[in-house]
């Protein structure tokens, strides 16, 4: 199992979601993609997209206005 960190700090929508879509293609099933974001709308649409794909998603608020979205590639 591999963990990949995707730095999207300072990126506005829709850059984080497009980058996440691209990054997850290269991952194997069971790998974890950690998307770092500080744009509150990405905190909504990145998890929504990942859940719609059927991936496991968890969000952690790491600091004021800063989040890490954990996406487990399940298929």
């Amino acid at each position, binding site marked *: 199992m591999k963990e990949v960190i995707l730095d999207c*700090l*300072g*990126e506005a929508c*829709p*850059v984080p979601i*497009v*980058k996440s879509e*691209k990054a997850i293609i290269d991952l194997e099933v069971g790998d974890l993609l950690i998307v770092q974001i*500080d*744009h*509150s709308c990405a905190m*909504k649409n990145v998890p929504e997209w990942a859940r719609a794909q059927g991936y496991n998603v968890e969000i952690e608020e790491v*600091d*004021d*206005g*800063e989040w890490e979205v954990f996406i487990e590639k399940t298929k």
Partner: protein
Amino acid sequence: MSVKPFDNLKNNKYYKMWFKDAFPYITGAVLLSVFQIFTLASTGNPWGVSGPLANWGAWIYEAFGGSVDKWYYFSSEGARATLENGFLNDGGSIRNIGIIAGALLATLMASQFKIKKIKNKKQVAAAILGGLLMGYGARIGFGCNIGALYSGIASFSLSGWVYAAFLFIGAYFGSRLLVKFFM
């Protein structure tokens, strides 16, 4: 072990519901609709955002000694009166200040305020270019996505729907450019 004073508040159900978590889209839509009806009823004009910004530009230009007297855009009597009456008498300008102050308050209440880093020069260039294009487009298009789209459709104006159709076309090409230059 010391208990921080805000720890309880942070987990409070109502704090989360009102201040921390984003409102559902439907709640936002209903609130926006109610407030824009209030705006139309109390001021006689539909809600707009970018119109007052053009006045801000004129006031800043005049503060540096410029003059917009001969500009076609500000040649109507209404536009002249608005500029002469000044910032504090322009309801749209006050409302825009309210939007900025309200957005700041909301992000502070949610404890999500953050000054973001500028990642690269491309972001700066895109922000300036995008801002110029949006501002220019909004002025020659009789409004932005609030004045021309939202208020247009709410006033049963066909132009609002035409705006919507071209908004999708613009968004399509815009996202193609975004993927090309920012990915």
